């Protein structure tokens, strides 16, 4: 692809030279670790301690280490965005003068988990609330304060809705009679028909 996936800026050039100097042995592991956490937004992949260990392992200063990690993440995010094939990723990396062995490492890591990573990004949604869990209970209501000697089946649906801000799951409880549940089901079937018509 002619499109410039990784622009040749000063920071990129500096990052590349740092990367080329880094020990190749541990490089693949670093790549897979970064790939694992790529789709998680705010989390940084490494804790303070781990960063210090990395500094020692790769003999990089703190700032240089940050630059290296950010550059690798950027390259991988671009690979996700453009849905690059491993071979074209390798070509791009070679065009910014990354060493052969490092480019190979990128290509094989990407070949291994690239599609999964893209899938994880696909699943990411922008709405703050998402349905996470579904639970239910089927009861046979025998009586209530307004009416005795019923025998009406009632379903209780528990929907666990996550909120991006808080870590807690909001539980929404909804009760259905047989008829109400049947109507709800018909609406779900309509949605399914719409989904089917997309493919």
């Amino acid at each position, binding site marked *: 692809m002619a499109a410039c996936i990784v622009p040749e800026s000063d920071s990129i050039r500096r990052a590349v030279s740092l990367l080329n100097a880094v020990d190749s042995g541990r490089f693949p592991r670093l790549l897979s670790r970064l790939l694992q956490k790529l789709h998680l937004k705010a989390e940084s992949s490494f804790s303070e301690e781990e960063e210090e260990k990395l500094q020692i392992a790769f003999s990089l200063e703190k700032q240089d280490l940050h630059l290296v990690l950010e550059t690798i993440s950027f390259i991988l995010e671009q690979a996700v965005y453009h849905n690059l094939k491993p071979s074209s990723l390798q070509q791009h990396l070679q065009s910014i003068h990354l060493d052969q062995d490092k480019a190979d490492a990128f290509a094989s890591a990407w070949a291994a988990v690239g599609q999964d990573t893209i899938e994880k990004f*696909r699943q*990411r949604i922008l709405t703050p609330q998402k349905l*996470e869990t579904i639970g239910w209970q089927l009861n046979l209501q025998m009586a209530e304060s307004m009416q005795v000697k*019923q025998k009406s089946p009632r*379903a209780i*649906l528990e929907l666990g809705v996550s909120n991006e801000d808080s870590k807690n799951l909001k539980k929404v409880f909804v009760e259905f009679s047989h008829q109400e549940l049947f109507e709800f089901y018909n609406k779900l079937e309509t949605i399914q028909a719409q989904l089917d018509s997309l493919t």
Partner: protein
Amino acid sequence: MAAVIGKSAAVVYGHGENGSGRGGGSFLGPRVPAEVEAMARGVQELGKETFRRLLKVTVNALEGKDCKESVKLIAESSNLSEEQLAFLISGMYTLLREALRLPLSTFKQEVFKEDLKELRIPEDFIVDFSSVVFGNRRPDSEGMALKQGSRLPSVQDFKWRVDVAISTSSLARALQPSILMMMKLSDGTAHRFEVPVAKFQELRYNVALILKEMNDLEKRSILKIQD
């Protein structure tokens, strides 16, 4: 002695089950509520017109409607004191509410009329009460139960949308469908959330499963037992 105990036991545990020979109470329970007794006494001197108006107000109250105006009108046009109105209406309300709690399949008109006779309510009025409980003027119990019943909120309004994300900040070509649901519940709360396609399938599967379970339950013999 044993016969008396037997009778009261029957009254407590078997609402309106047996035929004759019960002590007072029956569908109203072992002890007739005070307001019903007071009403039964007070209603004897009522004119038919006034009684019918009071009955109408009671039925409206049972359906959850606001009756302040109508009660005021009755108070003005009849010569009943506020106190009399109070126990007349509350007595009628309790009587009808208790009668309406029992399902029509097991609670028979004759039994109801018998019980009212025992309270010494005039024949005409028994007929009127009867037509409210057993006739087609029967207040909508489902509607009542929805408003006053103790139950979890049900879905009042359900809106949905199927979107396809073509491109996002992380993916040039996403082409990922997703479903947005907005549920308004009967307790006034509204919930809007996204449902990933896989979760939607899970929801659909579970709802179908519950429906199947409900069908099986309704066919089982426990529901066919008459009580």
